[in-house]
């Protein structure tokens, strides 16, 4: 028997008359909605809300869950995504009543425990990043980028310094140019040198008084540390620009080196990558922004302050860029991140980065005679291979899909764009050695199949709940909601 059951849509399981909840006891008279609301009252029941029993609902979602792959099942080596283990105790503390059932607009006196958590987390993130101040408001990495670039913009405008351009390396994540664009900047790409790092000569030649700043991911998406980072910061600063560091890959650096010490002015940190909060099938994440003191006046409102009597929110921030979130960010995600940091301690975080780099380099060493490297230089927490030498027209995508049949989630593929047919592998520190060895053996086996039985690889996956899905027709004729047949 297959472990997968075909599971209809909720709407196809709808059985009018079934009940999935028991509403609380009524203790007030029922209002006359039609009389109160008149023509503004809803005329029809929402037809697409099904009627199901509690058992129906649990079965439905349990069956759906079995169609997913997850970190708790096995290696999830998505490069630049840092799919590390999500500790269970963090889920428990985030569900404590005093945290989960706290209203965001309650009096500060009634939220001192929550404010202590936020304050402690801000201090910890400053310690890890080498920055002076921090805002926990951004709800994810891209919103953190947007916030950080807004800080840069507000800083220049405050000095009546009009600048128009943000420089972004060609290896950057797509969110970097998108975030800069949303802040009203024109984006200029700067080419990577043959070593995969920023070409400092080219940067020096381009840098001018029209450049607001540079956005750099360090280590970059090739896993390479920008060896000239100090010089890059100096070149940008010499012309009045600001240095933004995308902290997507901070998992390589904790306790090893700090952006604040390189000369970076502002960065965001993905708590759902480096600090172990769950990815949740696409969020919620958290993207706090940490910055140097000269950018602190511009941080989103309100800002947390500690006084003799305790903590309070300071809304009186005349230079603030404004709010980016209705309240204070994804609080219960922030709780999980602090639980992780306190569990690990400073030494534990450093050990995590060391083990992340060890695991990635171990995979690299064991695979590099079988898969061609995208770039030769030394790498840290991830390694990027290319499709050079794949036999019989087998592509990166085919290799990725065949890994599914061997029980793995595929790596990130076709990114970064500067590597042909990129295969970007980030195992993280939480993988045991035997899981890495099993992955190496799977890749080797697939490469052997590609030589002897390429059609098998091209037709993969064979063992998943679904074979390859037709993404082209999905986009050509979008069906985005259910309609009964």
């Amino acid at each position, binding site marked *: 028997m297959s472990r997968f059951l075909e599971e209809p849509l909720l709407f196809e399981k709808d059985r009018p008359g079934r009940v999935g909840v028991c509403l609380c006891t009524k203790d007030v008279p*029922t209002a006359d909605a039609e009389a109160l*609301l008149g023509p503004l009252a809803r005329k029809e029941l929402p037809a697409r809300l099904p009627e199901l029993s509690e058992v129906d609902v649990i079965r439905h979602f349990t069956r759906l869950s079995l169609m997913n792959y997850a970190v708790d099942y096995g290696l999830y080596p998505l490069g630049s995504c840092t799919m590390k283990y999500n500790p269970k105790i963090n889920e428990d503390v985030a569900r404590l009543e005093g945290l989960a*059932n706290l209203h965001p607009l309650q009096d500060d006196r009634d939220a001192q425990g929550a404010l202590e958590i936020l304050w402690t987390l801000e201090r910890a993130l400053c310690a890890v990043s080498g920055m002076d101040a921090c805002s926990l408001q951004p709800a994810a990495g*891209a919103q953190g980028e947007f916030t950080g670039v807004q800080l840069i913009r507000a800083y220049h405008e405050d000095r009546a310094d009009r600048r128009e351009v943000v420089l972004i390396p060609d290896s950057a994540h797509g969110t970097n140019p998108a*975030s800069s664009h949303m802040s009203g900047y024109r984006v200029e790409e700067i080419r990577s040198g043959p070593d995969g790092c920023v070409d400092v000569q080219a940067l020096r030649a381009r840098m001018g008084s029209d450049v607001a700043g540079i956005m750099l991911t360090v280590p970059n998406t090739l896993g390479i540390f920008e060896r000239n980072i100090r010089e890059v910061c100096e070149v940008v600063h010499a012309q009045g620009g600001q240095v933004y560091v995308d902290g997507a890959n901070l998992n390589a650096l904790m306790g090893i080196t700090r952006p604040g010490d390189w000369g970076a002015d502002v960065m965001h940190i993905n708590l759902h990558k480096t600090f172990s909060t769950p990815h949740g099938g696409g969020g919620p994440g958290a993207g706090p922004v940490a910055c140097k003191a000269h950018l602190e006046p511009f941080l989103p409102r309100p800002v947390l302050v500690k006084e003799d009597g305790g903590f309070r929110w300071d809304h009186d921030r005349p230079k603030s860029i404004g709010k980016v979130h209705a309240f204070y960010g994804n609080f219960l995600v922030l709780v999980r991140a602090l639980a992780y940091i306190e569990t690990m301690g400073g030494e534990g975080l450093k050990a995590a980065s060391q083990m992340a780099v060890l695991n990635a380099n171990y995979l690299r060493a064991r695979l590099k005679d079988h898969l061609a490297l995208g770039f030769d230089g030394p790498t840290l927490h991830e390694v990027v291979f290319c499709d050079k030498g794949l036999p019989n027209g087998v592509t990166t995508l085919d290799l990725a899909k065949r890994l599914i049949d061997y029980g793995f989630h595929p790596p990130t593929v076709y990114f970064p764009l500067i590597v042909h047919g990129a295969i970007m592998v980030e195992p993280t520190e939480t993988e045991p050695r035997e899981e890495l060895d099993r992955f190496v053996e799977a890749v080797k086996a697939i490469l052997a199949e590609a030589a002897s039985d390429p059609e098998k690889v091209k037709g993969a996956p064979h063992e998943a709940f679904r074979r390859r899905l037709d993404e082209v027709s999905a986009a050509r004729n979008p069906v985005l909601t259910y309609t009964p047949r």
Partner: protein
Amino acid sequence: MRYLPQSPEEIRAMLDVLGLSRAEDLFASVPEEVRLKAPLDLPAAVPECDLVERFIGRSSRNRSLTCRPSFLGAGAYAHFVPSVVNHVLLRSEFYTAYTPYQPELAQGTLQAIFEFQTMMADLCGMEVCNASLYDGASAAAEAALLAARVKKGRKVLVARSLHPAYREVVRTYLGRLDLDVEELPFGSDGRLDLAALKERVASGAAAVLVGQPNFFGVVEDVGAVAGALPEGAERPLLAAVVTEALSLALLEPPGRQGADVVCGEARSFGLPLGYGGPNLGFLAARKAHVRQMPGRLVGETKDHLGRRGFVLTLTTREQHIRREKATSNICTNQGLCMLAAVVYLALMGRKNLRELALRNLSKAEYLKARLKGKGITPLFSSPTFNEFAVTLKGTPEQASEALRKAQMVGGLDLSSPYPEFPRGYLLCATEQTPREAMDRAAEILGGLP
């Protein structure tokens, strides 16, 4: 360290494979001059039992809404969450998975998103809904940006009766894109001032954003707002911004009253208050605008054997493909919050969701009547849902202090966002607000000087 599996022997063996003697040597590519010389300035590791104690201590230093009746809403509404929701969220297969880029390994997440899109579009009276945005505030900002792209206009009109934090986020998002944000006044009935709207729209606008219900809890006549807009190419997109999604079960859907976008906050569907996050932003629109929508969309398709399946689709709108030309920079969204909402809505069903909404209305009407009996009158006469504004006899500060002393959580002081209402107070009642607490609160507020 229990999250790091390798034993010291295994670490040595792996370093041997690399020809290295120490873990420090893995970082040879990090220049000496930028290496951190001192240990991180962080406390030592805490064992699990002590960590639990520490967080219980922090949790208990908050005075949460557990066992404490509350009248606070203002964008975050206290609703009961059935146990089933949390049990589904705790399935590792959902919460430890990534964004469903590999559809063959993520059909569970993808089907749930498709179900969410369907249910939300129906509730909003719209044709399509995205897979989530961060929160209601950023959803309002994204709606304005969507309209600016579609209409190629530079002006966005925002009702002053829209949630103040939402208005501020809209300004943050639009302020540096040389888009003008102008505020529209409300009339003496608490609703959008349609005469002012007509006048402002005449000079051209890309979007009109109006809260439904608005920040005062007042139910807007979205049809009348739509009717006040010019026809043809001059017509801006009308976005109804919903801060309390439960209202959609009882109010005529904005999509059926002429709104072009319905967006907002759906945390009321199965998520805890969580001191304001994580939330569930959403944006629903018409098919005509789907290629300009922000955020992820899931579409139905088939696999190679012709079986139904689901994939992320229309991805050429998104940053990982289109980079700076993307419709939004959003990447990670609020996936697990979306899942909570699907589970919640599946449990509630069409009848019970409406019944719950009706009970919220009933509670708020009861409180309104009790307060009236004590001489505390609503600020506006228009109909409301589960929240309404009143003019207090004392100051809002006195009211909140008095309720706090009685172990209750008071409403919101309206005098700071709206200085013209020095005694304005916003009160909310949901199915979680007991009658007895409403009686007591009415006594206390009625007794203020």
